[in-house]
């Protein structure tokens, strides 16, 4: 067994004992030693001249780190709402049976650990699991048996017989069982790309001209919030700072979103080109791609694309012969934290800290990474910016609607015949999109992921665009027989799990809301609970510190609006409820555990998503 202290020393050394690289160091120690044990915290703190508790703060924040020894193969089953609807429970049961352990446990032989994980960006090929950094998609119970049998004989992950996916998923540096499911290519992101063309054009203009071009295109951020990109670049250019940074947000943690995965697989050059152009426009020479840990399988491939761009003079010094313009990009891996998609939490993480959001103002454009002016854009936004420079702002603005120009890449999942990625001009209605993806008998659509809104058929005539139905890309389709409240409960589970815990309303309020919603699913709700849900949701929305808490009540608020009758149907009609918060099942659970059998009268029920 490798010992934690010496591994830690060596990994710290590999990163020049630079505490700014703590994330990479923790990822390295976890991978090599199987855990980040107390001795590792001491050793890392010593090597980096930090306080131990600061190291512990980061090491205990991310889901992919563990203080206890994990198995050689860590199996993480995605328990996102879509995966649950598509049989994640059956897969879970199969893993339990094959391995003889529960989720959260490790087999006695030290080979396997089982864990749940929120959306891993594979909702179009659910149910999916991560085994270390490998993705296995459309998992069946037969596959579970085969996987466990193969790995149990001491073979490595390379020996799993996985069918490689289409496009670059079969690239020698990727070799992933992931399919692009790229159903519609539009004119912006997925059009043919020749490296350097957009960049060449950019470098023939003054930086301020580039910003004018982006502004004229009316490009708005594709990550969800829709902030005008040109303005963001202008602020960053104007802000004083010895160094400036361009960040690409590839955290893609919003449940049901997976379009950035496909963009990074099929058009990484365009992403890097957009970042380089942003660097030129704002006066930055350093770029960072924050890649979610779940997409680590793309890392070697992306590094290779970067190396080729350096060799081709598209990155590095005097780019494309432009004297004095230098720009380079590093990739920062995440380690399992949705909140790190929030731009200031992302910066904390890049700095090697726990992923707590920062206080705003100041905004990243003024004080971002290392307190220096920083542009942060979504993967797709960087692509669009490069194309706008290449083809002109009016070309771009001629697509989509007035307030929402250009195309949008949608990630469609759930109850439809063709889940996958669709690049379509803004302005398409829900009805039209449902027809294209082969969805019938749709009862609800979740627009914008867990943090978005659930709408019913009466709103299917509305358009996808910033001023009607805004989405960072996620469109989840729910057909006949699905239970909107159970789905909303699944989303609340997600927020409870992913809240960073910094501020009161989000840390405490999300749990209170989930519990109260659960009463409806369990038939314990009273009429007054509707009022409680409404009021407490508003407190969490209005008082939370960052976008996570501000949107966390949306599953409840939007179902209260669109599916109110479902709530009313669940209210306990007769019988007196003395204390609704009192769940006799939970109260006897400990005793039942000691007795080793379930209570005959109060078997514990749990509100989950029913398939």
């Amino acid at each position, binding site marked *: 067994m490798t010992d934690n202290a010496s591994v830690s020393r060596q990994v710290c050394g590999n990163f020049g004992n630079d505490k700014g690289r703590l994330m990479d160091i923790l990822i390295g120690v976890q991978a090599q030693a199987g855990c980040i044990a107390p001795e590792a915290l001491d050793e890392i703190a010593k090597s980096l001249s930090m306080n131990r508790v600061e190291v512990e703060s980061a090491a205990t*924040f991310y889901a992919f780190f563990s203080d206890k020894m994990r198995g050689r193969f860590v199996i993480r089953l995605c328990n996102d709402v879509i995966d649950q609807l598509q049989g994640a429970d059956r897969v879970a049961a199969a893993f339990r049976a094959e391995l003889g352990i529960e989720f959260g446990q490790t087999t006695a032989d030290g080979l396997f650990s089982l864990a749940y994980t929120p959306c891993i960006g594979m909702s179009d090929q659910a149910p999916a699991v991560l085994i270390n950094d490998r993705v296995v998609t459309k998992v069946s119970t037969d596959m579970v048996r085969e996987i466990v049998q193969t790995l149990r004989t001491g073979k490595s992950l390379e020996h799993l017989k996985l069918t490689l996916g289409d496009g670059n998923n079969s690239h020698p540096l990727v070799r992933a069982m992931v399919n692009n499911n790229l159903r519609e290519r539009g004119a912006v992101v997925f059009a043919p790309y020749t490296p350097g063309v957009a960049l060449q054009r950019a470098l023939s203009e003054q930086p301020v001209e580039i910003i004018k071009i982006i502004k004229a295109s009316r490009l708005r951020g594709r990550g969800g919030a829709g902030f005008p990109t040109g303005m963001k670049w202008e602020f960053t250019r104007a802000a004083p700072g010895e160094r400036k940074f361009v960040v690409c947000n590839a955290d893609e943690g919003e449940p049901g979103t997976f379009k950035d995965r496909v963009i990074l697989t099929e058009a990484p050059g365009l992403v890097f080109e957009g970042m380089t152009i942003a660097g030129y426009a704002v006066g930055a020479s350093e770029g960072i791609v924050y890649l979610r840990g779940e997409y680590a399988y793309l890392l070697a491939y992306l590094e290779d694309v970067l190396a080729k761009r350096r060799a081709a003079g598209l990155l590095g010094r005097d780019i494309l012969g432009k004297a004095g313009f230098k720009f380079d990009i590093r990739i920062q891996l995440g380690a399992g934290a949705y909140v790190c998609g929030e731009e200031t939490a992302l910066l904390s993480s890049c700095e090697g800290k726990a992923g707590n959001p920062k206080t705003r103002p100041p905004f990243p454009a003024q004080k971002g990474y290392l307190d220096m002016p920083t542009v942060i854009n979504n993967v797709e936004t960087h692509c669009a910016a490069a194309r706008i420079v290449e083809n002109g702002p009016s070309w771009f603005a001629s697509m989509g609607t007035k307030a929402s120009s250009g195309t949008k890449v949608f990630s469609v999942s759930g109850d439809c015949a063709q889940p996958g990625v669709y690049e379509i001009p803004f302005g398409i209605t829900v009805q039209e999109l449902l027809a294209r993806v082969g969805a019938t008998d749709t009862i609800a659509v979740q627009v914008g992921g867990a943090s978005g809104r659930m709408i019913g058929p009466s709103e299917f005539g509305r358009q996808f665009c910033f001023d009607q139905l805004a989405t960072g890309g996620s469109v989840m389709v729910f057909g006949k027989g699905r239970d909107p409240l159970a789905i909303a409960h699944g989303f609340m589970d997600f927020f409870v799990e992913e809240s960073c815990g910094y501020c*009161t309303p989000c840390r405490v309020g999300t749990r209170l809301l989930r519990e109260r919603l659960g009463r409806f699913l369990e038939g314990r709700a009273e009429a007054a609970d509707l009022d409680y849900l409404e009021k*407490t949701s508003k407190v969490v929305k209005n008082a939370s510190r960052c976008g996570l808490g501000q949107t966390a009540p949306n599953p409840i608020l939007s179902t209260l609006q669109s599916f109110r009758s479902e709530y009313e149907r669940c209210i306990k009609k007769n019988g007196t409820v003395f204390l609704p918060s009192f769940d006799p099942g939970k109260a006897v659970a400990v005793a039942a555990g000691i007795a080793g059998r379930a209570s005959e009268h109060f078997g514990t029920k749990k509100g989950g998503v029913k398939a």
Partner: protein
Amino acid sequence: MSAQDAAKLSFTIDGKEVKAEPGQTILQAAALAGIYIPHLCAMKGLSPWGSCRVCTVLVNGKPQAACTMPVAEGMIVENDTAELKDLRSSIVEMLFVEGNHFCMFCEKSGNCELQAMGYRLGMLQPRHDYMFPTRQVDASHPDVMLDHNRCILCARCIRASKELDGKNVFQFIHRGAHKRIGVDAAGGAGGTNLAVTDKAAEACPVGCIVKKRVGFAVPIGQRLYDTKPIGSHIEAGRAAKE
């Protein structure tokens, strides 16, 4: 108008004009003007933090934390309204149900800012359900005790240790519902360089960080908030000016 007043900017809180220096937060400017905005994680002398959210006000109609939001010319701040009082009370009640607060057995009672805030906001009983978490007590330090049952995660200890004591005794560990105060040693506070004279040992608004052997030195009934509600010293400042 004096030259000094000319350098100041002006905005309103509940319709009253307030003068402030650029760079001040709304909370700081309000306090200097004798206007109390309820707050827990903010503490004079420490950098703004913005975690409790009790100081939530409306700025031009939008909710903001008064303790982190910088003042700006002409901004319209709403503070003392029934809606905000209810929102603040809901948040304070969240803090009560999240931990284990049995005031009648707590050394901090009467000096506790959380308890006093509950009184000031007119809270009788939390509208939320109690969570009754299982939390630890760390008695490993010879002079100071940490009772995590009462911690409200305000980070005043973290900031005081860093900013006033020049140490780094405390930091948050874990995340979400599991977030808690960690100390800079594997075996508890006893292994850290925390001294009983540290400002960090004084900074806790509740009964989480308490000094040993000085309990009940001031009897209950004669403590800070036993006689006057929290915030009255700030309001007294305004009364003196008027």
